[in-house]
């Protein structure tokens, strides 16, 4: 797999959530991921982008930037916003914790990102923004025999 990268930036509108996950999964498609791997990446991107829209920008207008890097068999996805930031990352990452129960948030966003990706890092500064970095090795799941063909 040749190394490659892609950046996309868009407005923090909820109808861009599907655009964001489709564009990342289309870029990653050249790595020959399994259907499960594609589904995992789509869910993780959707969670990160939704967080930026609801929590980062609190439904106000802002920009969300997604950088995607393919290095050998690993994809790195970085989702950045310049929103309000997270004051307590540890608490925000606890499963079932949500700062917005009135919006029917399940509190499972970070838990899903963790479950569906191999690595997850969250950096944030209050009133500056949040950077979510997720990494996944493509082709290591058992049902993916594509990775054995070099």
């Amino acid at each position, binding site marked *: 797999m040749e190394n490659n990268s892609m950046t996309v930036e868009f407005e923090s509108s*909820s*109808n861009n*959530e*599907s655009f964001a*996950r489709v564009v990342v999964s289309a870029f990653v498609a050249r790595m020959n991921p399994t*259907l*499960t791997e594609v*589904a995992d990446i*789509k*869910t993780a991107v*959707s*969670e990160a982008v*939704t967080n930026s*829209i*609801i929590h980062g920008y609190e439904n106000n207008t802002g920009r969300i930037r997604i950088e995607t890097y393919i290095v050998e068999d690993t994809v790195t996805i970085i989702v950045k916003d310049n929103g309000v930031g997270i004051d307590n990352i540890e608490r925000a990452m606890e499963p079932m914790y949500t700062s917005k129960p009135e*919006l*029917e*948030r*399940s*509190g*499972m*966003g970070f*838990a*899903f990102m963790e*479950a569906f990706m191999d690595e997850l890092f969250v950096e944030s500064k209050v009133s500056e923004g949040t950077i979510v970095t997720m990494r996944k090795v493509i082709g290591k799941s058992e049902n993916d025999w594509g990775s054995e063909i070099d």
Partner: protein
Amino acid sequence: MENLYEMKDEILIIHLPEELDHHIAGLIRESTDELFTCKKIRDVVFDYKKTSFMDSSGIGLIMGRYREVRYLKGDVYLVNISDKMERILSISGLYRVAKRLDTIGDAIKDIEFKRTT
């Protein structure tokens, strides 16, 4: 999104769309809130037949409807679950509050049985 909903004997059946993210969950929540205020709903069946994508916003939508029906001792059912959806649903812990059955018919049978006993 009118055709997403079906009412039968105080059962609300929601035929979920292909993708269930924060954007779409918000639209469904608005229209179900309306249905809940103007109709008596005791049980809710979420039909996943067409659904191939769901994230944690979908989980929030179902938990919210569960909170609404449990005051009337109602239940929330999830039917026509594909392997892809099963992966998300089992991780979410939603099966602690929602019942998974194969078809809409199975859910209706279960509700009828529950109401006669």
